[in-house]
Structures are given as C-alpha cells and as structure tokens.
C-alpha cells in the first residue's frame, strides 16, 4: 500500500479531535452527590450500558470518519501483487530506439535486445490485455496503438529498425504512452520503459506518472562500452588555393591502443585514408583536398568500427566562396554599357580584385531558362517583368533556398509582382513616380549611401511583418526591403540599379552596396541536419530532375512539386543533390549523429518517487489500485452510521 500524497497523512492528527471532544464532554458535566444513586444505577442499568456502547461506537465511528477522509485526501493505493499472467491490463511499452540503443553488445544491438524483451513481455500477457508500443527515438512514434491482438503485437517488434540514428525523445514518448494508457478502459495500467538510460535520454527530467499507472524499467546497456566518434572537423584553406583544402579531424571517445584510420569519400568513392594519431582525448587526423575540387561535401569515416558504428561517420560541407549570380536584364540594349545590368556587371567584376568571388551570368528576360535559375545562388531581376510561366519556378526556387533581388525601373509592372509573387515579396510596389526634388539614401550599415541622389522611385508599401528595411529614402520611405521566404531570401529596391533614376551607380559606395547585398542574399546555412530532420529542396519538374544521393549511395528522386520537404535523412553523413545529373552544390547538406548519443554509459533507471520505486522489470510485481473511491464509500457509510447512532442516543 502506498500514498500519492503522503504528506496529507499528517491530517490523521485530526482523529484526536472527536476523542478530545468526547473526553471534554465527559468532564464538563457538573457533579452531584446523591445517596440514592443505587436507584439511578438500577433504572439506568440498561440505558447506561446502552449509552456507553452507543457513545463508544459514536467515538469510534467519528474517529474512523475523520481517518477515512484524511486517507482519501492522501490518495491511497493498493499494490496488488499479481503476475502478469493472471489479469488483463493495459500495457504501454516505450522502447528507446535512439542512436545509443544501436550499440552492439554480443552481436545484437540494444534495440534488438529490447525488442526481444518486449516480445517476451507481450507473450506473457493474458488474453484481453491491451498493448501500445511507442518508439522514443526522435521524433516519437506510436508503433502500436492500443491493440488487443497480442499475437500481432508480438510480431511488430521485428519491424523496428535495429540500427537507428535518431536522437532521444524519451520524455515525449512517455507522455504519449500515458495518454494512451489513460484512454484505456482497463483499470490496471502499466508503463514499461526499455532504454539504456544514458545521459542523452534525460530520463530524470521526464514527467513520470504519479497515480494510477505503475511504471517498470528495464535497463539495457553495454558493459564497458568501447565507442569513439568523429568529434569535430575543421576546414582550412581555399578550394582554389595552390595547396587545396585541409581537414583537421578530432576523434573523441574511449581510448584505444588499436590502430585507427580515417577514410574520406568523395562522390561515394573512397579517395583517401590516413592513420589517427592518438592524443590525450582521443586522437587527431588530417586530410587534404586537391585544388580545384568541385565537391561541395565529402564524407569521413573512422575505422575500424566500434560498438556504435553510426557515429564514426561524418559529412563535411566544404562550402564555396563563389556566389553564382544570375542577372536578368529587363531592359536589354545592344550596347552593353547601356544595359540595365551594366553597372551590376561592373561592380561584380571589381569583386575579384577585393578578394570576393562571384560567378556572373547575364540573361535577357526572354532568354531565361529553368536550369539557369536553379543553379544560381542569387537571381537579380533588374527592371524586369517576367513572363507568368517563370513565376511558379521562382517561388519554388526561393522556397528551396535561392535568393531573389528585384530592382525597380520603368519596365516593372507593380500589378504583376503584387498578384503572383505577393506572398514571396517583403512588400508591394506601388505606382512609379518621379520626384521634384532629389532624395538621398540612408543606411546604418552603409552611411556612404547618403551621397547618392534619387530622382525617381517605385515606392514599396505594405511591408510584411518580418521585413527589414536596410535602406531608406530621406523622406523616411523604404528604399531597400528584405525578408526571408522559407529557405530563401528576397530583397526589393525601390529605385533603379542603373543610372536611370539615381546617381547611385556613380557613387563609390555602389560596389560595396551591391557586393554586400549579394553576399547577404547568398548566405547559406552551414548547420548540419539532425537525423530524420527536414530539408527543404526544390522538387523535380518536367525539364529538371532533382535527385538526392544519400551517404550510402542511395539515390532518391524528388517528386514533381514546387518544393519538397525532404525527410529521408536517416543516414548519417553527406547528402549530395543532383540537378539534372550535375552536382547542385548549393543544396548539399550533411546529417550529423545526434549530440549526446555517443555516450553509452548508462545512468540507470530514474528514481520515480511519486508512487512506487523504480524497479527492474518484474513480472510478478504488483499493480497500483486506487483505494480512494472505496474509502470515500466507507466515509459515507460511517457518516450515515454516525447520524443513526446520534438518533439512537437521543432516544
């Protein structure tokens, strides 16, 4: 027997109240001597005896009533010692299938061992029991939802992936399990948690059930785990430098005397291997990448395997300083110097001299191609109103991580941008107007913009909530507006990028203004993705085939769609994206092993203090049966008994 709220038992002191009242009532009667008391005894003999009995019963009942109410408040429960075999109950099995559970012990992963144990538990259940299975690797999944077909449930454990790469979400899984148990109509509810309870599970911070659900733990772990991992990779040097790039790799984990080596794979082919130099905290190795390599990503693997091979792999994004810019000229001119993009091209040409690398492609609006768009980092629409057919592609392109810079001009049709690309843009172009007096530009990051004078503009209105004004006109109106759209960025300039409406291109600040804007727009996320995390990619179209090559060399064709949320990221390592068979460096990404999952040392099952001790799995252990309703019933009976006894006493 136990109590959900044991501190409430302090209220048992209140049992003394009726006893005290009884004693006080007896003491307060005045005394009177009477020689003929024998006659009172004679007539009171029966009555006094009856009253004495009634009084004692009243006292007993009142004390019991108080005690019962106090006990109800203390939420008592009874642990019914019964075997799993002898009664039906609802069982929720939380099976940890995080990466750490993929550790191999005696030829089997811990997940496999947990699955076997769970299968055995289910096999022992009496008919009519109800089983739910929740996998606690991130994100938690309900593997079996309240099924009474125990034979079927016994088979589903074989379908669980034995070599998980997932992070841990034990607490969320426990919460889900409790919800499923509470849905059950069976009063006997149990929660069985099978996990290695390593640091990464954070089991001690979970909200464990305090009442009505009995919890049992089974700890599965690898004694003396031998595990190492690639802790970090530092990329040094430039892709185009004479010495190429150098990768400095740190190895962490259990020290070993066995020789270790690091292997590098590029485009799925092993290209290098180097021994790991043992160091204080693990080891270190260094690899080099030849100059001129076009790989956006490489993959490293530590050999030989240890108990957890999954974290021996790591993808490395090599990155690229070159920003691919596609300039779409909306006002083409035979004389290159008079084109809308002439000043842009000039500014980008200067970039290489100041140490910045841009790859520029200029197209007239009517020469635009899907391939050109998808391979660029930044698409600049300079005074261009595009054909409607390109607008969905541009939306998909930006959603998938591309960036768009729209500059104003006499060919810009505000209505066209406002209707089709409204969702995409940080604001809405309004009617173009020429200013009677020139305006200047103001920017906190580039104060020199104040030197430029603007005579005409297409004002931007209705800025979106997340829009950032990076430059303003001297009258306070937005001159340059930027915001994020899904994975990409979009910027709008309210005046021309040539000298039609402004003298900005003639100002020294024009080059840094253009380069900073393009670098900012081309900024890529270099964060790794968690296993089974979502990556936003452009989908395949009729003319463009987008494919993802996973670390194991598996090729996934992306469906035809504007934008694909790619979730097949269960493998740890480097993912390459092919655009019509060619590497699309801009889309490459890596999936890293979840942090904390490489520590295989078990901390043991949490100490669940609420209602029962944390126990090793014990099929004969009891189930918690609440006694509150019964005590409440008893209290009611006692209350009626008390009323009855008072009536008897009065008679």
């Amino acid at each position, binding site marked *: 027997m136990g109590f959900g709220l044991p501190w409430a038992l302090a209220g048992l002191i209140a049992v003394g109240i009726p006893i005290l009242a009884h004693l006080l009532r007896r003491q307060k*009667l*005045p005394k009177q001597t*009477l*020689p003929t008391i024998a006659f009172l005894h004679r007539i009171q003999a029966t009555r006094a005896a009856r009253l004495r009995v009634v009084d004692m019963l009243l006292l007993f009942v009142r004390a019991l009533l108080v005690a019962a109410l106090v006990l109800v408040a203390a939420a008592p429960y009874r642990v019914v010692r019964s075997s799993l075999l002898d009664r039906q109950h609802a069982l929720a099995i939380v099976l940890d299938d995080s990466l750490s559970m993929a550790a191999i012990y005696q030829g089997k992963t811990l997940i496999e061992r947990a699955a076997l144990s769970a299968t055995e538990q289910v096999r022992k259940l009496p008919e009519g029991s109800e089983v739910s299975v929740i996998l606690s690797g991130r994100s938690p999944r309900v593997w079996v939802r309240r099924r009474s077909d125990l034979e079927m449930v016994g088979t589903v454990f074989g379908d669980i992936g034995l070599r998980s790469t997932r992070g841990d979400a034990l607490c969320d899984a426990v919460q889900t399990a409790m919800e499923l148990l509470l849905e059950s109509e069976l009063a006997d509810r149990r929660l069985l948690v099978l996990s290695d309870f390593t640091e990464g599970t954070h089991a001690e911070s979970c909200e464990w059930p305090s009442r009505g659900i009995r919890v049992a733990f089974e700890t599965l772990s690898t004694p003396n785990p031998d595990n190492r991992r690639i802790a970090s990779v530092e990329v040094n040097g430039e892709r185009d430098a004479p010495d190429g790039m150098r990768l400095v790799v740190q190895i962490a984990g259990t020290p070993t005397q066995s020789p270790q080596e690091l292997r590098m794979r590029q485009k799925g082919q092993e290209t290098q291997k180097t021994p790991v130099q043992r160091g204080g905290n693990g080891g270190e190795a260094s690899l080099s990448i030849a100059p001129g390599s076009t790989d956006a990503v490489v993959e490293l693997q530590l050999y030989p395997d240890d108990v957890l091979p999954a974290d021996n792999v790591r993808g490395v994004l090599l990155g690229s300083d070159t920003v691919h810019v596609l300039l779409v000229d909306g006002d083409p001119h035979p004389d290159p110097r008079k084109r809308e993009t002439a000043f842009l091209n000039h500014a980008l040409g200067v970039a290489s001299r100041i140490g910045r690398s841009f790859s520029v492609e200029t197209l007239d609006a009517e020469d635009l191609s899907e391939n050109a768009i998808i391979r660029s980092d930044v698409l600049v629409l300079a005074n261009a109103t595009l054909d409607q057919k390109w607008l969905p592609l541009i939306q998909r392109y930006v959603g998938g991580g591309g960036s768009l810079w729209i500059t104003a001009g006499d060919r810009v049709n505000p209505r066209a941008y406002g209707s089709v690309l409204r969702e995409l843009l940080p604001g809405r172009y309004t009617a173009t107007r020429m200013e009677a007096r020139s305006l200047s530009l103001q920017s906190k990051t580039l104060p020199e913009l104040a030197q430029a004078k603007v005579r005409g503009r297409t004002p931007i209105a209705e800025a979106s909530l997340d829009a950032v004004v990076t430059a303003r006109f001297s009258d306070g109106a937005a001159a340059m507006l930027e915001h994020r759209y899904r994975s990409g960025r979009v910027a709008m300039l309210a005046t021309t990028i040539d000298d039609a409406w402004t003298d900005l291109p003639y100002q020294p600040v024009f080059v840094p203004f253009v380069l900073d804007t393009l670098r900012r727009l081309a900024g890529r996320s270099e964060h790794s993705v968690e296993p089974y995390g979502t990556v936003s990619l452009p989908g395949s179209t009729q003319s463009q085939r987008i494919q993802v090559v996973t670390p194991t060399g598996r090729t996934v064709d992306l469906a035809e769609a504007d934008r694909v949320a790619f979730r097949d990221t269960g493998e740890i390592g480097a993912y390459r994206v092919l655009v019509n068979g060619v590497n699309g460096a801009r889309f490459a990404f890596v999936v890293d092993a979840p942090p904390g999952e490489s520590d295989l040392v078990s901390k043991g099952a949490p100490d669940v203090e609420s209602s029962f001790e944390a126990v090793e799995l014990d099929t004969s252990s009891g189930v918690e049966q609440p006694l509150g309703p019964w005590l409440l019933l008893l209290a009611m009976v006692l209350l009626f008994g008390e009323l009855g006894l008072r009536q008897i006493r009065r008679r």
Partner: protein
Amino acid sequence: MTHVLEPELAVRLAGLTLRAKRTVDGLLAGMHRSPHRGASAIFKEHRAYRPGDDPRLIDWRAYARSDRYTIKHFEHETQLRGTLALDISPSMHWGSGDVSKIDHAATLLAAIAYLLTRQGDAVSLVTFDEEIRDRLPARSGPAHLDYLMRTLAEPTRSNGQTALHASLDKLIEHAGRMGLVVIASDLLDLEGEALNPIARIQARGHQTIVLHVMDPAELELPYERPLHFEGLEGESPVEVDPKGARRRYRDAIDAFVGSCQRRVVAAGARYLLARTDTPPEHTLLQLLREG
C-alpha cells in the same frame, strides 16, 4: 481529664436541645403503663389464688367476705427503657438543603429522648452504620440526657456503609427486653433481608418505631440538567439526564419506600416517613397521635 466543649459542638448541641424541647412543647405528655402487674396504687382485678402465687398478695378482706382466697391485682407504673438507634452511615450526612438527614434524625431522636426523660424513663442510644459505633446505656435523669444529646449532636464519624441487618441484630442485644426501640435511618441497605431483625426486636416484646429519614431530593430527583452523579458509600458514578430518568426514578423510590413500610408493618412495628423538609414536631405529633 478536663472535658472542654468545643464551640461547634456547643452550637450544634444547643440547637439540637432547643429543637427537641420545642418539638415536645405543646405535645401531650404520653404516659406508659407498665406491662408488669404487681404492687401498685392502681387496682386492676381480683382473681382466684393459685398455688405458687405470692401469699402476700392475698386479699384478706375479700377472703373474709367470700371465704375464698383471692389475689388482688394492681397495675403498677414502671420506668420505660427507650432505645434510640441512629444511622450514622455517610448517606445520612447528606442533605439537599440546610438540614442533613442525620441532623433531622438526631433532632427527632433528641426530642423523643427529652420526652422520655421528662417522664422519668431510661433512655439508651446506639449509633450504627455497618456495625454498632456508639453505645450509651439506658439511664434517666438530666445528666444522662445531656450526655445523650451531646452524642446525638456529634456522633462518631463513619466511613462505613449502611448494614442494617447486622447492626439491628446487635441492637437486639443492646435493647434488652420489652422496651421502646426507635430506629432513625434512611434504610439505604437494599439487601432483601435488611429489615428482618425488626421482627425479632418485636418478638422480644419491644415496641419498635422506624423513622425512615429521607431528603426530598432523594424522593423527587428535582435536578434539571444532565449531571455526573456520585454516591456516598462507594457506588460507581453515573451520568444521568434527570429529565429523562425522573419518572422511573420516582417509581423506583416509591417502590422502595413502600417496600420498607410493608416490611416494617409486617414485622409488627410502626413506620413513619420522616422527610427532612417536614418540621420535626409534625413528625413527632403524628407519632404520638397514632401511638
């Protein structure tokens, strides 16, 4: 040894004497005829001489007239031996008002003693609870009366329970033969044979009077609120709401008083209920009138 009369006792004694005298004053003095026939101034009858008669009692004048030996019988007055028995058990010391039962009983007995002494009778006194405590021999005269009054005013302290049967049995020995025995007690000995010795006292030729001394509160249980009742002779206490118990209590008390009366009368003695709220002279007057 110098006997100093304690002030409290003096007050009690003076009060008792005063009450006794006042009780007697105004009452007719009762005269007792001796049951013994013999030489006396009062002629009773003539009868034929029978052998064994004292020859000195032969009436020679009657012989001269009738030539038959005739005995002249005189009814002679004799000194009465009165025995007063006072119950001094703890229950007698209780009273709901100013007067305790023992005070009332003592007043009655003192009045009777005073009356008897005035007539020249000898009076003895016995106090008892579960046994005889004080024992004053039968004497007459003012000095003895004074001594008796003093004993009545300050009887031996008793802690024992009332044990009428044993005490009255011993009273028989003390009373001698053919006298007046007055017993003042609350008779709170509920043993079935408690009053049986009265019949034996009667058989000895005594005229027995039982003064059943009761407090009105004992008879009526006049209390209103629940009380924790305690006894005076070791009875266990009891909590009673008098309102609810009064009727049955009175029935029980009435039955007890009636039972005592029946037993006393059946033994040939006289029974008189002496309530402490009834003036003693009324009780004594009733006693003399019916005597």
